[in-house]
């Protein structure tokens, strides 16, 4: 196996993992604390990308566009919480799935009406559009390194917020026993709203980071949402550390599987069959990983300890 290719693919896996973490973190908090299944979380990611593309085009600066897109994405999240989601807390999961599924349809079509069906152009900022030469002469896009760095920085900040602050204590307490937390004087609805806004911001951030490398189009969040659910199941519901570990695992396994599995299959099967079998296997790989984790540890790798549900 080519060591340079392996290193580059590891970076690719890390970059996917970091984006997945940003989306999964919000999803796992909302699910863990509010027991609320929010399928529309992927829409938050998509909206972040649309806002960032639009504001970047208007201001001519990626950083300025991002700075405007974040609060706008949070505003959409808060509005959704107040208008729709808040009425579904404590309801049956099926009700929540149906309601948030409806929100996906509504917002996806709304975005299509406002911005049109053509994918939006969102160029990589000029200061990161070059390739960096790594060890061994391999090149890697600077912007992807920027995503990895930015994502890890946000992950560190989020960890500090959850582990070191009073707000973080309330978030963790809420994840294990929201009823008791309320009986001790915390306005749980307000906490939910804050957590929701935080989740919307993280997903929006992921969207604006991903926008320049992926096409900005209405359905861009759909695929990622499924992966994010796999991540939080692997990591353990409600657990930020679990989401981080799960996201990196899924990112690496998916990327390395896509790059090396077909070649591995060629060792045992003829090339023509391997070309068929390899892609099929690699697209199943993360689900196999999820099943394996669930067999070994049904509550995920790092569950929010002692969650009462």
């Amino acid at each position: 196996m080519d060591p340079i290719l392996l290193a580059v693919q590891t970076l690719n896996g890390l970059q996917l993992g970091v984006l997945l973490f940003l989306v999964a973190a919000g999803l796992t908090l909302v699910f863990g604390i509010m027991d609320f299944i929010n399928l529309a979380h992927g829409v938050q990611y998509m909206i972040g990308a649309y806002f960032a593309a639009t504001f970047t085009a208007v201001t001519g600066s990626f950083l300025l566009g991002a700075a405007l897109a974040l609060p706008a994405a949070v505003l959409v999240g808060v509005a959704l919480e107040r208008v729709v989601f808040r009425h579904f807390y404590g309801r049956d999961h099926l009700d929540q799935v149906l309601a948030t599924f409806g929100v996906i349809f509504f917002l996806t079509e709304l975005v299509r009406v406002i911005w049109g069906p053509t994918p939006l152009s969102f160029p990589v900022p000029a200061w990161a559009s070059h390739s960096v030469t790594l060890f061994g002469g391999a090149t890697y896009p600077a912007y992807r390194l920027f995503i990895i760095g930015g994502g890890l920085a946000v992950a560190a900040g989020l960890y500090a917020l959850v582990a070191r602050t009073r707000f973080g204590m309330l978030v963790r307490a809420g994840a294990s026993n929201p009823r008791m937390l309320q009986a001790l004087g915390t306005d749980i609805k307000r906490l939910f709203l804050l957590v929701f806004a935080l989740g919307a911001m993280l997903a929006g951030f992921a969207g604006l980071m991903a926008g320049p490398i992926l096409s900005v189009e209405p359905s861009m969040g759909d695929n990622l949402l499924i992966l994010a659910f796999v991540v939080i199941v692997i990591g353990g519901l409600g657990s930020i550390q679990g989401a981080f570990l799960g996201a990196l695992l899924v990112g690496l396994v998916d990327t390395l599987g896509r790059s090396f599995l077909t070649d591995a299959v060629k060792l045992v099967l003829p090339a023509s069959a391997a070309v068929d079998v390899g892609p099929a296997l690699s697209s199943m790989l993360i689900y196999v990983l999820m099943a394996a984790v669930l067999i070994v540890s049904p509550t995920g790798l790092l569950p929010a300890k002692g969650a009462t549900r």
Partner: protein
Amino acid sequence: MKRTVLAAALMAGLALPAGAQDLRIGLMSTLTGPQAVTGQHLRDGFMLGVEHAGGKLGGLETKVTIVDDQLKPDVAVQEVEGLLKRDNVNIVAGVVYSNILMAVYKPVVESDAFLISANAGPAPVAGNRCSENFFNTSWQNDQTHGAVGKHVSDSGIKKVFLLAPNYQAGKDGLTGFKRHFKGEVVDEVYTKLGQLDFSAEIAKIQSAKPDAVYTFMPGGMGVNLVKQYAQAGLKDKIPLFSAFTVDETTLPATEDAGLGLFSASIWTPDLDNVANKRFVEDFRKKNGYVPSYFAAQAYDAARLIDAAVRQAGGVKDKAKLRAALRQAKFDSVRGAFAFNKNHFPVSDFYLVEAAKLPDGAPAMLKRKLVFEKYADDYAGECPMKW
């Protein structure tokens, strides 16, 4: 929302004198979902064709009912049942995607109506399942892939890396390419349908060091691949050839990343003929964007219907109308137009490059002829005689 009634609406139809004919067309396109932009091109192209006939294709009051297949075969079948039974259409036209065409093919060709595909051209309906009630104004799917394969071979490229989504059309596409490419395939990678990040595949390409890459990545997948390929700094090192990936529907999103990439097509906006100049000019004026082959082929479909209905003196005599359709006496935007025995056109295929029109709008422009009067590879399997 799904029904647009053009020209003579029902009221006008009621006012017609007894015995007068009208023409009812069902236009099936993909108008919602991620691939809606291609369907929008197709619809706008067809409607411009109707407009250029003064709203009267073949001189008949024409009513076009537009339906959205949502890129879902079951929805398409339902919609086409409605067109045939409720709207009593004479012709079902349009259809962007092959899986949709395969779903509606049988119900339409076994009814009293004609089916005219303006885009989809899957192998079975060009070969042994061809029908006297089916016509195609685009191409058989393999042809475009084959044309790129021939060009890549002709330009002395020895080693290519192949990349396509892991579904039937992806595999067919690469097979079509390999039929006319004589060099070595260093690797053949199939990605998950709908995959949006190609970093792993791009790293594999870098490591495999081929002379060129050939890909078929329609829609958003292609936009992402093209952008990421350029970002990785590969665009100038390893040429990226493609089919149905870089075109006027995706160039607005890929912008500079797509410019300079080569593909093949039967039509470009800069083809030099009178019909095409009028089409491109009026299309841009009316719709505000540059038409793609989706629009051009649909425009041709409308012009074909116009000429055939006029020649057959109406739609009542189906045999007469079929004979007129086969003769295809209209000025196609691609220049000469003629049907093969299997009702697929025999067209010239050009090497095309993503570049800028004189006014700066990106489009696929003609570079050179690759195949002259290229008949598809399945026509021989079609038993139809005429």
